[in-house]
């Protein structure tokens, strides 16, 4: 007898062989310069239910460049497993040709050259076209937003998320879950959530005082579609008050709460759900583990760690669908649900090539309307870059190198620290740097650039603590960010070691001397989770630095050495 797991694996093999995801064919199409919207959207409608997933948009209304990481290290059981495979290895794994559109969309390598060829990605007006096309095939498709939507741009900051709410409402989602939204503060979050014409879900969003579920964020919503019942359970980012400033939303507690997830799965199954979908902001490895701990989940739509995979991953009996970030991808998942269970699926990760997909005029107009009051100040050119500026990568990125340089010179510090967030679009060599570009990589509600003294010993504690948030071998102890970026400080990190012994050879780059545990160093940084942080806003610090530089060039950064991979 064929087990359900075998069955799902067969489905996946078929998708790889026959290219139902469409990835196998693009290389040839692109070689012929014939990549069209129809090909990107081509999909043989399958089963009786369609899910549409978009996540981690980070308020990117307009098309941008976004370079995928070249360093993404897996630890423990996830060493060498997707999404911890990058560049040429990633292309080999999925049979993607070098120089193809899939190479450009999904992997690092030759990014600047390919960006010239294939252009920008994303734009919610293009996303709207894709969603409309799926709905033309399947009018009752369920559109799910994985969160990190109301954060990350100039207009989003100025309107406290209203621009994103207005545009997303026009796409007509069915449900959403959350992470950075909470950094707007609990009052604003409540105000926006109450205004939403769709469900705001989070089985792990609890009242902090009573440790009970909240009324504002129900755990799940049932949908009757295609003659069946589908439950969508929300899973917000589990570590919000730890990774982000808890003082901004003291009324709420989070956590993974997989025991409550199991209770919710059991509850919706008992209520007649034939298919259970989790709309998750856990991050990929946490989702993978949760699928083995909680039974009865058919599909996890995975967000937070910004991974994009051309095929779902299988964990236990659950398929996991990660859909990238910054509006770069939309996932379509068609499901065949019969006789009380999911019998099969067909999936496609649709890259939003902005020059190939026609913008939806109505949403394009709405986006322009949100931006119009701020267009003049946003579009001001501050400088220009000779280098590719990107952020994503476990240890460093050129954008953060530039931000650290700004902190060192503008704030007169010996060492700079920049948070290992994963959002922030890229700029390609020769591009102007506008104020909007700077805000795209710095905008947040706790962006003050602090200046403080730390001893060498404490600095090591900080690095060890952050390193354990990414390299702890148990995914449940990972928070989903990258390593804190350092300026003026070099070190070696052994990712295979436990907390306290990963970091060694800390060196003050200015003098080449080893960091003295007993000496105090002047540190500049930003995005402190402490309530009364003082200093100028980071975007002003970076703007001032770039304005002085005129044209920026960021060289290769070899100050962090990695071992134990």
């Amino acid at each position: 007898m064929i087990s359900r797991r075998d069955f799902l694996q067969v489905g996946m093999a078929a998708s790889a062989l026959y290219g139902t995801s469409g990835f196998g064919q693009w290389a040839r199409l692109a070689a012929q310069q014939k990549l069209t919207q129809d090909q990107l959207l081509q999909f043989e409608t399958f089963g009786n239910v369609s899910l549409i997933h978009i996540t981690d948009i980070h308020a990117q209304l307009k098309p941008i460049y976004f370079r995928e990481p070249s360093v993404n290290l897996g630890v423990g059981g996830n060493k060498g497993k997707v999404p911890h495979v990058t560049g040429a290895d990633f292309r080999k794994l999925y049979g993607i040709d070098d120089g193809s559109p899939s190479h450009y969309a999904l992997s690092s390598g030759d990014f600047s050259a390919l960006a010239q060829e294939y252009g920008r990605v994303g734009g919610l007006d293009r996303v709207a076209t894709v969603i409309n096309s799926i709905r033309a095939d399947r009018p009752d498709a369920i559109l799910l937003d994985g969160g990190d939507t109301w954060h990350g741009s100039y207009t989003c900051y100025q309107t406290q998320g209203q621009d994103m709410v207005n545009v997303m409402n026009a796409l007509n989602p069915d449900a959403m879950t959350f992470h950075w939204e909470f950094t707007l503060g609990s009052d604003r979050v409540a105000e926006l959530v109450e205004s939403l014409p769709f469900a705001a879900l989070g089985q792990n969003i609890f009242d902090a005082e009573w440790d009970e579920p909240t009324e504002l964020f129900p755990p799940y919503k049932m949908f009757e579609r295609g003659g069946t019942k589908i439950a969508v359970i929300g899973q917000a980012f589990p570590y919000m008050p730890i990774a982000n400033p808890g003082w901004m939303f003291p009324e709420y507690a989070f956590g993974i709460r997989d025991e409550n997830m199991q209770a919710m799965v059991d509850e919706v199954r008992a209520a007649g759900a034939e298919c259970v979908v989790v709309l998750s902001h856990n991050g990929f490895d946490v989702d993978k583990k949760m699928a083995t701990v909680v039974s009865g989940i058919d599909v996890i739509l995975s967000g937070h760690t910004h991974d994009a995979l051309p095929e779902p991953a299988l964990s236990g009996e659950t398929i996991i669908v990660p859909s990238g970030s910054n509006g770069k991808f939309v996932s379509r998942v068609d499901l065949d649900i019969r006789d009380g269970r999911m019998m099969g699926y067909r999936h496609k990760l649709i890259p939003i090539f902005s020059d190939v997909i026609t913008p939806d005029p109505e949403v394009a107009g709405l986006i322009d309307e949100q931006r119009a009051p701020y267009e003049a100040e946003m579009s001001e050119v501050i400088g220009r870059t000779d280098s590719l500026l990107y952020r994503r990568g476990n240890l460093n990125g050129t954008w953060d190198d530039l931000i650290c340089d700004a902190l060192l010179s503008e704030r007169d510090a010996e060492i700079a620290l920049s948070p290992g967030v994963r959002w922030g679009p890229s700029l390609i060599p020769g591009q102007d740097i506008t104020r909007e570009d700077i805000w795209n990589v710095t905008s947040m509600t706790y962006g003050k650039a602090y200046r403080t003294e730390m001893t060498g010993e404490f600095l090591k504690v900080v690095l060890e603590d952050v390193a354990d948030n990414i390299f702890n071998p148990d995914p449940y102890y990972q928070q989903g960010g990258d390593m804190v970026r350092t300026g003026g400080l070099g070190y070696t990190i052994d990712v295979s070691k436990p907390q306290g012994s990963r970091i060694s050879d800390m060196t003050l780059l200015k003098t080449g001397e080893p960091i003295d545990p007993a000496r105090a160093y002047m540190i500049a940084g930003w995005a402190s989770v402490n309530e009364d942080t003082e200093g100028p806003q980071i975007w002003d610090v970076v703007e001032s630095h770039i304005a002085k530089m005129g044209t920026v060039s960021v060289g290769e950064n070899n100050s962090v050495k990695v071992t134990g991979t």
Partner: protein
Amino acid sequence: MELTRRNMLVISSGTALTAALGALPAFASMTDDEIAKITGGADTAEGAITLTAPEIAENGNTVPIEVAAPGATMVALFADGNPTPKVATIKFGPLNPTNAASTRIRLAGTQNVVAIAQMEDGTFQKASANVKVTIGGCGG
């Protein structure tokens, strides 16, 4: 120089954290000693009781924990990295409908929370959970 009092407190609590980590084995053996006092050295089985705790504490000063111990007459809770590992002893009478209890505890640093239950037949059950106390970071 803009070192605020709060930053100072954060920094010193970070230092305390390392100190606590370094001293953990001593506290852990104190927990073993306390457990031996209760069980008289008898074996402890696992699987019948459930201890629920966050993987990472949102606030180390008030960590919600819950123990469900069907068939137990008593549960003792320990935090093996605290200077005083004994947390609570809970006794369930015959009319108790759930044999479950929840409370909040203070944890000095990353450590194990351990529950030892004495069952109706006099045998012992154990459950533990590792709770990480972190100085906070930067999430994706």
